[in-house]
């Protein structure tokens, strides 16, 4: 049988026609994107994070809520009448709780708490005990300045490169008290405007917990028990699809060649530990895990992204990617550099 271009054009048109304009299917994808993007977090400074869903989980994952309740300094406006009362985990992200609050949407629209940081390695995390309605989001403001809004499961940190710059824009100062306010707002606030109040008629039965965590030494973090076998790391790159790849290892520093032409760095961990990525000696991203789930991030080596991290480069320039890993007790990480220019 002869197959020519026209055959393919007709085939592609015919095969894809059934999908075109299927509102249910598109709506389904849209809903999934909204949910996923609300859960994503980037602890990466100035780097385009290709949003593997597991990254979101990695950053926002908390220790089980069954750990002892935090010593809230803040008091929610919510009346916590239903049992069991959700608590803010004492440990989360890669740190220890500085302050937290519980917002019961059935009885309140806002809740606040205070925290007093002693370092810039901070992450504000929120989670929901029950999902928020589709038309409701939660906004996090620090010292009265909106930091983020979205669905449940958000986390914001200052990134690896310059967290002081990030937190300072919200008025946070070391040794001084700052206030975090959670507010339920209508979903999809208009661009460039302050979110409107949530109509009083809106019913919200969700409970949102939020806390600010300050990074602590790895040794002080209560790690979960190790599983009998670790999750699998990504398969080795296929021939012709990558420039180079680093295999698994424990605590090493290694350097890899790359170029600023859209190469993509992929990092995966399956056990507690830290992976730092440096480009020409400048820290651009860090992936910290404190459990045994699969965590990953991807960063694009582009001119804009690297300049945003303080690395002055030109398109096509050769750079050195340095990978530093810490605290791994077993082969539980991998870093790959992907290239599409060959």
């Amino acid at each position: 049988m002869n197959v020519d271009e026209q055959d393919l054009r007709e085939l592609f048109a015919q095969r894809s026609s059934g999908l075109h304009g299927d509102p249910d299917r598109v709506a389904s994808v849209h809903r999934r994107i909204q949910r996923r993007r609300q859960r994503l977090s980037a602890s990466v400074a100035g780097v385009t994070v290709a949003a593997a869903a597991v990254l979101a989980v990695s950053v926002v994952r908390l220790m089980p809520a069954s750990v002892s309740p935090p010593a809230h300094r803040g008091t929610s406006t919510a009346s916590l009448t239903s049992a069991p009362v959700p608590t803010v985990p004492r440990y989360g992200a890669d740190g220890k709780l500085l302050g937290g609050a519980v917002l019961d949407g059935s009885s309140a629209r806002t809740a606040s708490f205070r925290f007093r940081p002693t370092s810039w390695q901070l992450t504000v995390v929120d989670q929901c005990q029950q999902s928020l309605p589709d038309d409701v989001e939660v906004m996090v403001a620090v010292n009265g300045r909106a930091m983020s809004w979205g669905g449940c499961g958000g986390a914001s940190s200052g990134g690896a490169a310059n967290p002081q710059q990030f937190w300072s824009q919200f008025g946070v100062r070391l040794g001084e008290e700052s206030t975090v306010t959670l507010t339920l707002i209508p979903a999809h606030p208009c661009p460039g405007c302050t979110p409107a109040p949530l109509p009083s008629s809106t019913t919200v039965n969700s409970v949102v917990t939020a806390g600010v965590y300050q990074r602590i030494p790895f040794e002080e973090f209560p790690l979960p028990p190790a599983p009998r076998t670790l999750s699998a790391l990504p398969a080795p790159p296929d021939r012709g699809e990558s420039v180079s790849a680093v295999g698994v290892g424990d605590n090493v520093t290694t350097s890899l060649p790359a170029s600023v032409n859209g190469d993509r760095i992929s990092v995966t961990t399956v056990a507690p530990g830290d992976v730092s990525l440096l480009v020409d000696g400048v820290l651009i991203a860090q992936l910290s895990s404190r459990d045994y789930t699969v965590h990953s991030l991807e960063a694009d080596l582009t001119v804009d992204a690297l300049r945003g991290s303080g690395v002055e480069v030109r398109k096509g320039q050769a750079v050195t990617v340095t990978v530093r890993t810490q605290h791994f007790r077993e082969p539980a990480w991998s870093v790959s550099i992907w290239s599409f220019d060959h």
Partner: protein
Amino acid sequence: MVSGSPDGPPRLQDADGPGHAAAALPRTTSWAAGGHMRADLRDFDEFVRTSSPRLLRTAYLLTQDEAAAEDLLQTALLKLWQSWGRVEGDAFPYARRIVVTTYVSWWRRLWRGEVPTGELLDLGEHHDHDVGSRDLVWSALGRLPLRQRAVLVLRFFEDLSERETATVLRISTGTVKSQTSKGLAQLRRDASLHPERQEQS
């Protein structure tokens, strides 16, 4: 401590003053430079709504599986969203590029279920000849290397030129030519398109 009331949120004090609430960041953004991304959030939603049908078609032609196509599209749009604030002009080509490169570069790692098309149709008398032939070609397409398949989809579904295809895949136009040629040749050679060969073997 409580800065709002149950009936209304607090008045936000934007870093840049009233009317500049764009200083607020989307939930997923933790770096200062990303402030403009939130302001475009609704634009992004609109883009997703209007562009998803077309992108989904491309994703389906690449993956040959509806669920995989949805996953691929979702992954690609999430990536797009991460860089939405830096997208200038028409976002569709950029989104399409993400779909294709995601598919070519690492999609197969996430989508283990990718299999070449499944059953061949019985070309009995009840089947229209053209329809049956297309099914066979569709099956054969599923056996092509990912990059070749991507080149063919971009060239003959998206109607991109060789140069445009090269840009999307970040390969040379020469590679596009050779991959197109090899892909078509492979389809012509595929045993499933030549029942007589199968019988002989």
